[in-house]
């Protein structure tokens, strides 16, 4: 796990736990997410079709797949926003959706863009989220201010979230996911639109969370980021897991035992060549 070590970004959080501690933390626990034979149907088509994955506690887990593979639907089922057609979900040892309330208390979610409240300022939104998780007003206000400063959103206090850029929206969503110190982070494209400095900060924070024994479940189309951060990776296609394991395990499946995550991804998902009749392209 030594290859996961990153130098702390200027002004960012330092990585304090050793890789051994990290490995011990997540190998000794029950799975943070345990999904078995999960199915979800929309209009007669399975968006998720017999998905089975197990994410160890403390793991930095990359959940990859092409567009429409069922990643967001899976996250929606993990937080109880969508009901599975069949199969079982266990989050932090609790069955979902039966124990949705208890599970949600321990989850930090960076959702897709539509979940933010556009007519609140960043501070107001963070305070609102903190209070939803039962933090007192004083603590909510204090942590909101600290997170805004950390993500460099404190410069324009009166700016509404609706006026934020895409990267700023992701940063405030990240702040909201952190504010109640959750045990499990569900991150749906958290780095989308975030500048290099912000992305670096977010990565450092997530790595630190994983080293503390918290679990990060990440979807991203930026495979280099996943390759750099994640302990384990699952690639899904058409609602099914097509390959899962550590990067070393995935590489071992390739013919020469090497190759980048992008090459593995393209191979298992299947790249479409440009048809010959599109020569004008």
């Amino acid at each position, binding site marked *: 796990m030594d290859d996961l070590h990153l130098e702390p970004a200027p002004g960012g959080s330092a990585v304090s736990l050793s890789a051994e501690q990290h490995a011990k933390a997540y190998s000794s626990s029950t799975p943070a997410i345990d999904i078995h034979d999960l199915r979800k149907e*929309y209009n007669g*088509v399975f968006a998720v079709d017999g998905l089975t994955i197990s994410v160890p506690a403390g793991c930095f887990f990359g959940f990859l797949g092409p567009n429409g593979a069922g990643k967001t639907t899976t996250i*929606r089922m993990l937080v109880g926003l969508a009901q599975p057609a069949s199969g079982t979900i266990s989050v932090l040892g609790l069955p979902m959706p039966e124990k949705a*309330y208890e599970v949600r208390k321990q989850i930090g979610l960076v959702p897709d863009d539509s979940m933010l409240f556009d*007519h609140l300022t960043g501070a107001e939104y963070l305070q609102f*989220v903190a*209070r*939803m998780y*039962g933090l007192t007003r004083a603590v909510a206000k204090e942590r909101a201010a600290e997170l805004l400063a950390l993500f460099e959103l404190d410069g324009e206090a009166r700016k509404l979230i609706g006026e934020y850029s895409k990267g700023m929206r992701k940063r405030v969503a990240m702040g909201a996911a952190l504010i109640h110190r959750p045990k499990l982070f569900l991150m749906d494209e958290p780095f989308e639109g975030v500048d290099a400095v912000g992305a670096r900060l977010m990565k450092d924070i997530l790595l630190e969370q994983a080293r503390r024994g918290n679990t990060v479940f990440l979807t991203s189309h930026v495979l280099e980021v996943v390759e750099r951060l994640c302990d384990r990776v699952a690639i899904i296609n058409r609602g099914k897991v097509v390959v899962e394991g550590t990067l070393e395990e995935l590489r071992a499946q390739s013919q020469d035992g090497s190759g980048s995550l992008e090459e593995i991804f393209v191979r298992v998902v299947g790249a479409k060549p440009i048809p010959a009749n599109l020569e004008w392209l």
Partner: protein
Amino acid sequence: MREQIEAILWAQFRTIRNYLPRTSLGAILLALISLVWYGLFCLGAVGLAKGMQYVSMYHLRLYFPAGMLGLLLFWQIFPILTMSSGWSLELNKLLVYPIHSNTLFVVELMLRLTTSPESVILLVGAIWGLLAHPGMHGWWPLLLLLYIPFNLLLSLAVRESMMSLFRKKRLREVLMLLIVSISVVPSLLANTSLGERLRPYYLYAANGPGTPWHEFASLALGRPGWLSVAAAMFWLVLAWWLSRRQFAASLLLDFGQAGGDSSPARGTARSTKPGFVELLANFVSGFLPDPYAALVEKEVSSLLRTPRFRVLFGMACFFSVVIFFPMAFGRHGASFLASNYVAFVNTYGMLICGEVLIWNVFGFDRRAAQLYYVAPAGFKQVLLAKNAVAAFFVGIQTLVVVSASLIMPRRGDVAAIAGGIAISGVVFLFFLAAGNYASVSFPRPVQPNQTFRRQAGGKTQLILFASYILMAVPIGLAFLARWATGKDWVFFAVLTFDLLAAACFYYVSLEPVMAMGIRDRERIIDALSKGADPIGLGS
């Protein structure tokens, strides 16, 4: 629970505070309209309270349950007829947090107060009237306050049931027809002999023992029997159970697909043969060159595929025809309305569809708005294409209205229909000119999947009001000319002139609107990018 309720309400308060200063003129206008509207109901409540003191106890016992029944019908049906869902929680945004369903239920129940505050005002007036009545003793009228939670619970159950039905494809359209049928009932009762004939049955139903309105009225009028107390409690519990059941069902919704998503899910098998929508879109665009053809084709296809537009257009074509029928041709039918039936119905239809077709043309496909500025087709072509599509749909609506008017009992002659069409043309052109200005000045994002409407913004309403005045002058002149000369040809001559004037007004207004649209593109895109808040502000 209390902390979370406070936090949700606090966030909504901040939302309103953040939002209102940005639309100060609209906010002031809306506040004034609300003040007048609710002021009238407050006056009505005071009148009710004062008037009730002069009614004998005998008559109170006879008619008070009827009043309670009327109030219940108004409370429960009026929001459905006006398609206004009031404020409600944005559950898809709140369900990711650890909030107990009880908390959400309590907040949602409180928000039901926003659907019909008029009913609460009138009920308070009635309680006051009973308390001050010389024949009443004790505080029994205060028990009528229980009618508020009963109606709130019932209203929540009705709303959740309606929303659930509206999410079902096909059933949505059937439901709309049902609503149209119900909505014509008050007009039918007022304008035909049906009202008189049904009155004894209404009173009989109102005084039916065991009914909630009768039992709550009995409680309020004093000295109720144990049966009345038990029946009132039973209705309260039943309403609570129904609302909890419906609300629990809505919590189990898949929010990824909720709201009647019209877009097919990944991999949904779709026929390769062109359907009705594609054929219609191709037909309309066939008369135009590109890029207009492409824009019109896209616009017609996307509008017809969105539930909200289908419901609105269905209402414009059929609801408007039905709602004016008893008023025009009933027992007290107005001859002016009957002879100008096409014009009235068509104008009303345009008002229904206007939000989408005319005065907020970018709100519906807001995600495409950025493309309009970067595509080589240009903003001018986009606006003209959208106007052409509006003309197409208003044309179809006119065809339906004219066809309906031809089968009416006292149908107008060709001249009356031609006059109606000409007036509709004048109204449409004025609306279009005002609508283009409103669309670029005050664009607002609209959810295409949301069947229940949200009201037009305050500034847009101000522009609409101004355009009413503007168009009333030339149309009024045509009627004045006919009245003064007694000749139809003069009426048509003035109307022809009006049409030309309206066309010129539309043409002249295009340039500044387009210039504003291009100049203010940043503001327009920004406004159209806005999303929702913890509580959805309905109308």
